[in-house]
């Protein structure tokens, strides 16, 4: 799994991919955290030193699964003041549940307003899941 951060005029985009939808969601979540914080925190550190949160998110198609999952992470940041760096997820249908591990970050360069549906298309080709999400900051 992996991600790439792309700048656009008023915000930033994260392209994520993975062999499963769990990996896709984790990649996008990680990319979102890195894009906001400007740094990368290891999943191990998050698991060892961070706080564990249970999440359960519902969607009605793959796009809403992605947006609702990322919106949940944004909400977690707003209310619990942590960014999530490690993911333990299970996707069923268009719902995802599991545990995530978050750590507070000193300096956040971009305040995430929302994960948007702009140009969002979750694709599954050649055994790989792929999506690019535009964030409003």
């Amino acid at each position, binding site marked *: 799994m992996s991600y790439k*951060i*792309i*700048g*656009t*005029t*008023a*915000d*930033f985009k994260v392209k994520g991919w993975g062999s499963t939808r769990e990996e896709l969601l984790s990649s996008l979540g990680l990319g979102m955290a890195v894009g906001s914080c*400007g740094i990368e925190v290891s999943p191990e550190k998050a698991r060892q030193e961070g706080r564990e949160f249970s999440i359960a998110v519902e969607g*009605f198609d793959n*796009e*809403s699964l992605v*947006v*609702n999952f990322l*919106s949940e992470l944004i*909400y977690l*940041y*707003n*209310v619990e*003041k942590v960014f999530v760096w490690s993911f333990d997820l299970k996707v069923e249908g268009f719902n995802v549940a599991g545990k995530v591990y978050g750590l507070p970050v000193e*300096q*956040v*360069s*971009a*305040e995430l*307003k*929302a*994960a*948007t*549906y*702009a*140009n*969002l298309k979750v694709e599954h080709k050649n055994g790989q899941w792929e999506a690019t999400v*535009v964030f*409003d*900051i």
Partner: protein
Amino acid sequence: MIKLNKISDYIWEVPKSFRSDMLVPARILASEKLLEKIKEDLSIEQTINVATLPGIQKYSIAMPDIHEGYGFPIGGVAAFDQKEGIISPGGIGYDINCGVRLLKSTATLVEVRPRLPEIADELFENIPSGVGKGGKVRFSDAELDEIMIEGAEWMLEKGFAKPEDITHIEENGRLSMADPTKVSQRAKTRGRDQIGTLGSGNHFAEVQYVEKIFDKKAAEVFGLFEGQITIAIHCGSRGLGHQHATDYLNVMRLAMAKYKISVPDPELACTLFESPEGQDYFAGMAAAANFAFANRQYLTFLTRNIWEKFGFGELSLLYDIAHNIGKLEKHIIDGKEKNLVMHRKGATRSFGPARSEIPDDFKSVGQPVLLPGNMGIASYVMCGLDSSEEISFGSAAHGAGRVMSRAQAKRTWYGKTLKEELEAQGIYLRTSSWAGAAEEAPGAYKDIDEVAQVTEGVGLAKRVARLRPLAVVKG
């Protein structure tokens, strides 16, 4: 390849024949110079996409400071028939009622200049700004609901506003159709401790001075004079608005199949305005908008407290305008008055003297239109024109739109160097994020002078005063 037909010097049109799903033409209000930048992103494509939405009237319009957004462009105006047209959260924005207000002082540049670094420090220390920064006050659930119903009026009741402030806010700082029960608990939790906070990104509090007056009569009516100190506050509904928009984009996406609506981009998700979903979104949007009016009012209270310490006299409110909002307005189309659902995202209302909605003391010249520029260059106070009715449903630009991504701006400028360069020009920047400051570098924005000139040239609003920054506080 999109071919633009030149309608006049500053009006360009994509005819509806360009694409089979367009219901009306798309119009871009810009000079050739601004158009070069506009063509570099997807602004025009997005303006065309908006032209496909049910019930859209006359044209899908792009303001001179247009840039690419999510589904809808930023700097876009669209009017929909109230009975047959849609409402779309994306056409209003995630930051519901992001807007700006301008405070006027009786003090002058000469008096204030020696104290600027101190003033900048005081503002930075006492006005919460920055990512994740909570406010100094925390409101109960019941108070939050009251704030969402009463907006700026609530602040007046609690002693955080002067009576004369209220009539100098768009809609008197309170949209009457607000219903906080349509705002999710999640949104309320996000917003609860954010009243009295600026947020981050392009939000700011800025001390300025009036550098030049363009229109003596309007300046006199607005109470502006050369050398006068002014203070601008730019922010919105914070996490509460963002969450409400997020919530309803989902609701709308699910509902579209029911109403047999399909859209070119999922971010254009919408339902009929008169559908239950449309009504719920709108009532919640109004509640979030009232939250933002209350927020800017409370920030004014904090600013007045700080200003008082320096003994420079009182701060009075010129006007407070929204630039991400949905409004119910009557406009004349083909000689008939129609009830419309106005969507302005990154665009400001710009009513001239003929409109009854504007405050009594501005009726001789039109409402103030505030165009915040960027922190290094300038901002404008303009006044609305009656000619804007026909061209843009009484709308104007909202500032200098971006031309460069935040990532590129951070690669091009270094926040701390920017601070030094600004200070060399007598502008004091205080921020908690140097990366954030770099993202807001003047070069990342369109030319505000060009935007203001074109806004006037096309007949949307006319220039009254050019303001220059002196102290900028941003998150």
